[in-house]
């Protein structure tokens, strides 16, 4: 700033007035009230970031016909905008879960997201059908099925079949359990689900939680 400008401003602000306590309190009060009003005004703007009523309502359960599924077949359905996998496991696939028990990070799914009625290594109501959300617990990519066994899979010579997340390389076994030392911390979540009949599966509702 040029000197001329400095001189110009000091004419107006250069006064060394004595402190007036009541004015200072007024300034503090004005600042406090103004600040509170500003915070209040921010509420609707922040609120507008949260999911709308329409987004909240779009969570209806999905009914799936699993009657025609072949052993080893994988089916993907959309529930709440996410892929849900239904894998009809063969006896060999179920047997492989015993072998992967020692390789996975959370074999009993103690810290993973799943309903109470899904327990053990199979993580299913009916062992034959794995139902899980096909979204990696690391950063939300959808893993790819890698069903070829051993060296054919290109993963390892002892690969038992499972899923590989293309984004950061997390590996999951045929129960959606994450292998040890992977970027993903937890097993793939199992959504609430229930069997309406032998061939009809309802995803998103189990009648057990309100």
């Amino acid at each position, binding site marked *: 700033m040029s000197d001329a400008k400095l001189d110009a401003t000091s004419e107006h602000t250069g006064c060394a007035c004595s402190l007036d306590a009541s004015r200072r309190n007024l300034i503090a009060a004005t600042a406090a009230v103004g600040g509170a009003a500003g915070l209040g005004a921010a509420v609707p703007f922040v609120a507008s970031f949260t999911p709308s009523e329409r987004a909240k309502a779009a969570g209806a359960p999905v009914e799936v016909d699993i009657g025609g599924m072949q052993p080893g077949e994988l089916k993907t359905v959309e529930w709440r905008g996410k892929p849900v996998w239904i894998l009809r496991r063969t006896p060999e696939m179920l047997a492989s879960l015993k072998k992967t028990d020692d390789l996975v990070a959370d074999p009993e799914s103690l810290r993973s997201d799943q309903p109470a009625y899904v327990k053990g290594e199979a993580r299913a109501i009916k062992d034959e059908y794995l139902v899980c959300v096909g979204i990696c617990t690391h950063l939300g990519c959808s893993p790819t099925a890698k069903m070829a066994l051993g060296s054919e899979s290109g993963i390892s010579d002892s690969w038992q079949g499972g899923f590989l997340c293309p984004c950061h*390389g997390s590996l999951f076994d045929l129960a959606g359990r994450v292998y040890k030392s992977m970027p993903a911390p937890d097993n793939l979540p199992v959504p609430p689900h229930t069997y309406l009949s032998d061939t009809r599966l309802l995803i998103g509702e189990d009648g057990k939680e309100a």
Partner: protein
Amino acid sequence: MQKQAQQLLDWVDARFPLTFLWESQWGKYVAPKNFNFWYIFGSLAMLVLVIQIVTGIFLVMHYKPDASLNAAGVPVAFASVEYIMRDVPGGWIIRYLHSTGASAFFVVVYLHMFRGLMYGSYRKPRELVWLFGVAIFLCLMAEAFFGYLLPWGQMSFWGAQVIVNLFGAIPLIGEPLSIMIRGDYVVSDATLNRFFSFHVIAIPLVLIGLVAAHLTALHEVGSNNPDGVEIKKQPKDANGIPLDGIYSHPYYTIKDIFGAVVFLFVFAAVVFFMPEGGGYFLEFNNFIPADPLKTPPHIAPVWYFTPYYSILRATTSDFMLWLGIFVLVVGGLSVFSLRHQLAKLAAAGVTAVLLVAFYFLDAKFWGVVLMGVSVLLFALLPWLDRSPVKSIRYKGGLYKGILAVFVVCFVVLGYLGILPPTPVGTIVSQICSILYLGFFAFMPWYTAMDKTQPEPERVTWQ
């Protein structure tokens, strides 16, 4: 005629500091006379900013941020980009200018930052110039990220999915926070619309403000130069110009125009002959409309994010042990070197807290932290560098070697970030991540140990 023009200028100057602004910001701004090739990237960044804003304004006239499906079953947003490419007259060139401009921005800015590293442009008294610059870099990353969702292709969708989920890794508030960013439980129409808003107005406004602050701060303290000599400390001539100073106009005006012409040759060559940049500027998977049910077999961010993406990927639970050792070494060294008792205590405390937190919180969370930290560490450079000289010309072999290692690590991390994850790649990226962090963390020690040559009184210039 000339008289009338002068009268008009006087009339304006009496009401608005036009001449003052022009002279202080460029016309009579005195810069060192020894600028070299590396000093072109600042003005080029400005040029690219203008290209992005102008092309952006025209793209918004035809683009629709709408994730719903049209009659043909294609998302409206994706279809509107195809419409711009095929049906809007001149649309294809405007869009290619914009998409190439995004990559060009990062090319230019990375080189601009490297110039700063080489010549110590962040050193006192230019700390604020540097900090505004780091903020610009962050804004640029945000701008690129938000913009990348808009074409609503597979890479747009899954890239946004991954990055928004990064915030989910923060303990306690992470999940609600990522829902708030998306405005939905998944990346959806709500996400697309808000990213559009951020991309076209919020971030550009901040960006332009920061650019103004960056330049104002620079023109206040004066430019650094390849010798790191402070020309303001030199004797001045009759006009008050330091011995090694020249006016930006016309000298650097001509230089910058020349640089812009060369740049535009290369830029136009990319726009016209390889707008997809071999899949690096426009990724091939992004020509497929977004499918929330299927992640492409290989997803990678655009090239300019890959060094940081690699650091994220490198942070596995195995890596936490190495990171723990690294923090222990840096913390121990700090406790040993710091003079004040209180500072020693603080360093020991921070180290202990970090080590405990490493043990209890997921590697996933630390990956996110490390990625953020590796960008933000640049902001600390003015206070980490203890060398008595600014420029690499007078620094010793130690610093030169370490800077070279840092650059190699940055490039290797960038390269690995493009590839699918492999066990060997993970180990290499872990080594590079540690070296990257080490460049900053050990800087106070190696810059102090480095055998420097004395800075000259005058700049080197033929």
